[in-house]
């Protein structure tokens, strides 16, 4: 069927005008090249806008690098998924393209299968204990991240270096600290993937089983059956509700709303409140929940440095809180109806179960459901630990390195550090330390600011370019479980992608219902304040921290994602329709166009 489906060669993709030389921003192993041409043209590449919807600033490439290694190694070398190695990455015009490496040799598959069964069984059999340990490891790594010392280079070293016989200088320690930051990030992702194959694996199989009997079963239904209802990823939003209720109870709600609406900065609001006893009580409660629950980013997984956390910009959680206070005052119920959600989940599960054709089906269903429910807490909760909490802190620690480079006149502003690849930064830190130790002028101040300005311009322009969804050669069969599940690559999807143009876009049903309204295309989280009430949000992906936005919009359309996209879950929470995984929503729909979305059918119609 897809034999006539032809995709463009990755070597034929043109560089947009004014972006010439973009390649120099990225390491050579991330580029398509003549050396590997035959290999690279022989397989399928698709753009990963699920995780990386925007062109990659050179430093932000650390994220795909992290997960490329961590996820791939669990597939290829640790658990040895039988018919797949890892997921290959390349960058084209700033966008990340990914491609699974498949195994077809039956003998090798058998060999790997034996290992896989033994090793993965160990994780399933001991999941609860291992998950507990896993959480400890992740949190310990975050604590370590907070502790890494980053200090400016002094003119004279402190006396203690001599009296304590430390033996190493501040310069050396700076380089060490930078290395530790980078290692810490990679370690976070090592742990992220440790549970991934196990967690998503069970879910994938459960999905496959259910769809054999109920071919039309939707992702949201599957998610609903295995979801734990009370999950850590939703705690930040819960905390906002608690704070809103406390504010009303302590009668400080009026003051908070009034000041916030006068554009008084939250820090000042808090200072104002602290002046009396009740206000002080509320502020201490707020301070208490900030660590860790306000280490919550505004981006999906905080995969970009600009995805700041609530702790960096308290206006974001305050906006949510003020919204909840207003709703409380209008007598609205803001609690998530846990009991109802749990009942709904049980009823739906039981009804589907009763429709299975034989008792054998029911037995298999029960077993798979049990296993999937055991591991699903990981699937739902890991983004909070590995992505939000860790990354919000990580980006800020890199900014501290940025400050040091600013002081040395290597770069103009602290944010400019993100226009450098992590390996370039290491080199620059050596240059800085040499300059500091030797007393010789560094070269960087002379050329670096201009170079980074050019990079900034290129990235800005690349943001306007629409990456083709898929490139290369379509394989007979995909055996890489992540590609199938996380990115939903199927024959149908490839077909949709190859004919994206048109007035009706097809995606997946994310959250049921129909909405009609004006589209607002938002490519990145920092532009979210452009959204007007009653519009339909069109974006590459959504993030759970956009909570308040969900209460503003009528519906959501995303380019990528299925049940793993938080857009679906949150949209359902807010009772608004969502169509996810359209492939080309942000490139086809324009802001201001009237669209009609059907969250049950997974269609988006451009009306005018």
């Amino acid at each position, binding site marked *: 069927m*897809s034999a006539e489906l032809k995709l463009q060669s990755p070597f034929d993709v043109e560089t947009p005008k004014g972006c010439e030389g973009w390649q120099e921003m990225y390491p050579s192993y991330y580029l398509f090249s003549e050396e590997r041409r035959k290999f690279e043209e022989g397989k399928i590449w698709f753009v990963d806008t699920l995780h990386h919807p925007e062109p990659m600033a050179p430093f932000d490439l650390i994220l795909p690098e992290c997960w490329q290694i961590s996820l791939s190694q669990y597939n290829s070398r640790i658990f040895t998924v*039988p018919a797949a190695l890892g997921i290959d990455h390349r960058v084209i015009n700033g966008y990340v393209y990914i491609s699974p490496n498949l195994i077809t040799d039956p003998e090798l598959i058998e060999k790997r299968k034996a290992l896989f069964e033994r090793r993965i069984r160990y994780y399933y059999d001991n999941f609860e204990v291992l998950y507990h340990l896993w959480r400890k490891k992740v949190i310990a790594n975050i604590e370590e991240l907070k502790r890494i010392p980053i200090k400016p280079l002094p003119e004279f070293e402190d006396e203690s270096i001599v009296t304590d016989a430390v033996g190493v200088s501040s310069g050396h320690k700076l380089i060490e600290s930078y290395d530790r930051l980078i290692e810490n990030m990679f370690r976070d992702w090592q742990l992220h993937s440790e549970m991934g194959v196990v967690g998503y694996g069970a879910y994938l199989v459960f999905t496959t089983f259910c769809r054999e009997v*109920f071919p*039309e079963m939707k992702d949201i239904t599957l998610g609903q059956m295995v979801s734990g209802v009370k999950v850590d990823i939703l705690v930040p939003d819960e905390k906002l509700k608690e704070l809103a209720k406390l504010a009303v109870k302590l009668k400080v709600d009026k003051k908070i709303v009034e000041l916030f609406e006068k554009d008084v900065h939250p820090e000042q609001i808090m200072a104002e409140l602290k002046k009396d006893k009740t206000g002080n009580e509320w502020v201490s409660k707020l301070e208490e929940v900030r660590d860790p629950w306000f280490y919550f980013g505004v981006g999906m997984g905080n995969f970009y440095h600009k995805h700041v956390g609530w702790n960096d910009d308290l206006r974001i959680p305050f906006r949510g809180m003020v919204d909840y206070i207003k709703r409380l005052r209008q007598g609205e119920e803001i609690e998530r109806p846990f009991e109802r959600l749990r009942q709904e989940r049980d009823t739906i599960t039981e009804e589907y179960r009763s429709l299975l054709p034989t008792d054998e089906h029911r037995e*298999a269903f029960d*077993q*798979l459901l049990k296993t999937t429910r055991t591991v699903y807490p990981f699937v739902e909760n890991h983004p909070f630990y590995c992505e939000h909490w860790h990354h919000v802190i990580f980006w800020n620690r890199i900014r501290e390195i940025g400050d040091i480079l600013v002081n040395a006149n290597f770069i103009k502003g602290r944010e400019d550090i993100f226009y450098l690849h992590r390996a370039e930064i290491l080199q620059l830190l050596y240059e800085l330390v040499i300059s500091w130790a030797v007393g010789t002028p560094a070269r960087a101040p002379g050329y670096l600011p201009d170079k980074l300005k050019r990079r900034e311009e290129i990235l800005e322009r690349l943001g306007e370019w629409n990456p083709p969804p898929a490139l290369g050669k379509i*394989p007979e069969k995909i055996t890489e479980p992540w590609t199938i599940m996380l990115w939903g690559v199927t024959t149908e999807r490839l077909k949709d992608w190859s004919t994206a143009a048109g007035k009706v876009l097809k995606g997946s049903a994310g959250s049921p219902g129909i909405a009609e309204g004006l589209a607002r295309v938002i490519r990145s989280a920092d532009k979210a304040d452009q959204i007007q009430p009653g519009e339909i949000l069109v974006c590459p992906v959504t993030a759970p921290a956009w909570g308040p936005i969900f209460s503003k919009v009528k519906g959501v359309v995303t380019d990528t994602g299925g049940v793993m996209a938080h857009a679906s879950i949150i949209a359902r929470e807010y009772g608004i329709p969502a169509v996810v995984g359209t492939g080309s929503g942000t490139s086809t729909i324009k802001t201001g166009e009237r669209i009609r979305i059907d969250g049950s059918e997974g269609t988006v119609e451009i009306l005018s």
Partner: protein
Amino acid sequence: MKTEQQKVVYWMRELTKSDLNVVGKKCANLGEMSNKGLPAPPGFALSVVGYERFMKETGVGQEIDKYLQKYSTETLKKAAEAEAASKAVRKMIEGKPMPEDMEKEIVGAYHTLCQEIGRDDVEVAVRSSGAVSMPGQFETYLYVHGASEVIKNVIRCWGSTFTPRAIMFRAEKGLGIGIWPIGVAVIKMVNAKASGIMFTLNPVTGDRSKITIEGNWGLGESVVSGRIEPDRFKVNKITLEIEEKRLGRKEEEYIYDSKRRVTEFRAAPPERRSEFCLTDEEIIKLVNLGKQAEKLFGGEPQDTEWAIDKDLPPEENILLLQSRPETIWASKQKKGVPRTTSALDYITSTLTEGKKLK
């Protein structure tokens, strides 16, 4: 199970599906539906005993036996012979009067039915009801009205056990070519605003969590025959969400003209073609009936016929005319029984298989 072996007339609501041998399959099913509270059209059933008594007491049974002696089973496999035999036998049957006490009982039941509906000479359907389903072999008479017409058509219906097709079929299968007792259903004709079919699964994909409905204005014949493009609805059986509504072209409607006493296909007026033949509320009511029917018939997916009756009040105007098990997917899925293994074996084998792209 009924034990009064000699009884001729049963009200549908007295029957259950275990009365298959008493009144035939169609009556037993309709009975089960009424009995369990599904809105089947009101009416009564004539038992297999009624057929037997008629054949015996009028002497026509013996006459038939005698007549058929001149045929061998072999000759009745041929169309021409079967046709000649059919004509003769049916003429014999239709020429006999109904035994007096039976006539009294049937006419009495018909009058009671008219009273219940609140109209004289209610139009009824007289439907054959064999012990096993033999689609198209026996006959059904629609829009029968008035006591004498009912009696006449019941006899005709009995006679239809000798249609050429039925004779040939029995000869072919070696089932015996003599009398073939059946039950008869006498049920109110639906005055259909809209009607159609409903599967309690998606017949295209086999997905049992869906209910699919096809419908058109007027009588169901237009949908069943496939003559027109009907409206199509797909509903999630569990959440009751209407997932698909497709407006069909509905080129024609099958209508009963009560003055001329004929049913015929007519071009549909444009305003009805552009309007769905079911409201959302009606769709959900219908889906709930489908779910009920499925539960009633052992949890097997059902293939049903439905209609909305203009004569009945809104709260009880949706009727199920028929409900029988869907067989294609049921057997397919039962064959694909999972290898009962541990969850882990499942996971490893599924992760190894992958997904075909070409």
